[in-house]
């Protein structure tokens, strides 16, 4: 490895005095057009809804109240927990978790297989895994919808070879959404696990074998703990975007498969929307994502020690 590129000779190459000016464009652009907007959205979530869409600048917790509390149909009953939106969150978490599990089941063996090829061929395998990621997500989702339709090529093919008698109803179900999320983010699972397995020292496995451990015992007891950071990273990379996904639930799911993304989207459509409520849902989603990321950072920190 090269001597630490940071700090050491920085004075000599003369970039140190320019570091702040060089960072300035990044601060300006991401600061102005992402950080400020996110903070502003947080502010909007505690303002009063304007009936023409947008907000009135008056403090109000109505949006969070609407999310968590119900007072009956006419608002005159004692406050109770509102389950509608919590249920949407719960379903989104569940869908994202199942998609993540599916990605892990397919992704881990794939990553392992690629990492154990000869170094010359690995780049080509990784290339094959990454190509679909570069294809437009909308187009991938539309392709999946086309494939899974009731009269789509999958059903026609299965009918033709006689595996099924009636077309499988996949589209507009939870399964379609899980498949869509799985299909959208599968490469995100394979790549970090691949990176971890590639660094894995196979002498450990051989030592385990010499001590009479079978291959699957070795996988469970030796390999998995060592490559765990890669697995965790892969799971996060699939779970987090799945949680707020919009395209897969919208194009593959039906009315029953409503997820957080659609709930937020709806609040900003025309005059029917509710900007403070949409802002509140977005803030709650972001807190959830932050919790997941913090948990990962802590887990990674422990792993290093």
């Amino acid at each position, binding site marked *: 490895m090269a001597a630490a*590129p940071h700090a050491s000779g920085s004075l000599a190459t003369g970039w140190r005095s320019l570091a702040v000016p060089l960072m300035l464009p990044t601060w300006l652009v*991401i600061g102005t057009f992402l950080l400020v907007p*996110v903070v*502003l959205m947080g502010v909007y979530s505690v303002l009063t809804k304007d009936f023409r869409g947008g907000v009135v600048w008056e403090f109000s917790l109505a949006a969070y109240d609407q999310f968590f509390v119900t007072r009956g149909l006419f608002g005159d009953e004692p406050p109770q927990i509102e389950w509608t939106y919590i249920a949407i969150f719960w379903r989104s978490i569940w869908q994202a978790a199942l998609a993540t599990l599916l990605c892990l089941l397919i992704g881990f063996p794939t990553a392992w297989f690629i990492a154990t090829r000869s170094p010359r061929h690995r780049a080509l395998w990784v290339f094959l895994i990454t190509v*679909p990621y570069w294809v437009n997500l909308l187009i991938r989702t539309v392709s999946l919808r086309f494939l899974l339709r009731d009269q789509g090529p999958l059903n026609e093919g299965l009918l033709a070879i006689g595996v099924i008698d009636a077309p499988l109803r996949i589209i507009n179900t939870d399964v379609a959404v899980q498949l869509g999320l799985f299909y959208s983010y599968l490469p995100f699972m394979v790549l970090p696990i691949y990176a971890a397995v590639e660094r894995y020292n196979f002498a450990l496995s051989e030592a385990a074998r010499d001590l009479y451990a079978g291959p699957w015992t070795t996988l469970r007891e030796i390999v998995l703990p060592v490559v765990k950071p890669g697995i965790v990273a892969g799971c996060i990379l699939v779970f987090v975007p799945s949680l707020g996904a919009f395209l897969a639930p919208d194009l593959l799911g039906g009315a029953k498969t409503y997820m957080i993304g659609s709930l937020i989207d709806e609040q900003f459509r025309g005059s029917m929307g509710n900007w403070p409520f949409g802002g509140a849902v977005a803030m709650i*989603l972001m807190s959830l994502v932050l919790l997941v990321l913090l948990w990962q950072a802590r887990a990674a920190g422990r792993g290093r020690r």
Partner: protein
Amino acid sequence: MAARTDMRRYAGFGLTTALCLTILYVPLAVIAVYSFNDDRSITNWAGFSLRWYADVFTGPEAPIFRAAAWNSLSIAALASTAATVIALAAAVAMIRGGRFHGRQASYALISLPLMVPEIVTAVATLVFFTAIGVRTGYGTILVAHITFCIPFAYLPIAARMQGIEESYELAARDLYASRWQAFRLILLPLMMPGIISGWLLAFIISLDDFIITNFVKGAGMETLPTAIFGSVKQGIKPNIMAISTLMLMVSVVFVTLSYLANRIGQKTR
């Protein structure tokens, strides 16, 4: 001596890999094949035809597609170029700048677009532009795209720069090259594969975006993904499959170029 088990091999892993690649490619292959179908209904196969490709360029919806394609491509080119320049400056600061004040915060800021869920970014950006009274349209899409493209351009550039030892630049400086000359004649050429990958990645990411664009595009403004989405809502039509296949091919060309840039990069390292 008994044959020793190869601890790198697990039964079924090769098969799962084959399954994984099948799942990844079959939907794309299917849509590409059906885009050549000479039939108005999308279900039956009625022979090979290029009529839907002709339809994309000359049919009744051609002007919409042409305008959308122009918007998509010009925004992607401008956004990825701006993001690459910004990311290159940031990478020099982060990797050659030593422990300057605010380094940790800068790193967090660069990764922020990757951490915030897309739908949240979309909504927040819309709220922001509405609050400051900017009309949504081409300009707002461009600004939003530059913002979320920065980390994607940054990652390959930073990865490449980390692998370049400072000694090259130091040697140039010892030979009385100015800081600028050392950058332009030594660091920049060595950085090129990273810069090209970063630009290509940012370009594709910009071209790919639907959710954020959909929120900040304003009325009457379409990019390819928003136009396709609008059309698909009424059912998948054959001309959409043709246009999807064309976009698919653009993506494949780009990823191949990026792959080659990296391979050349590895040889010159």
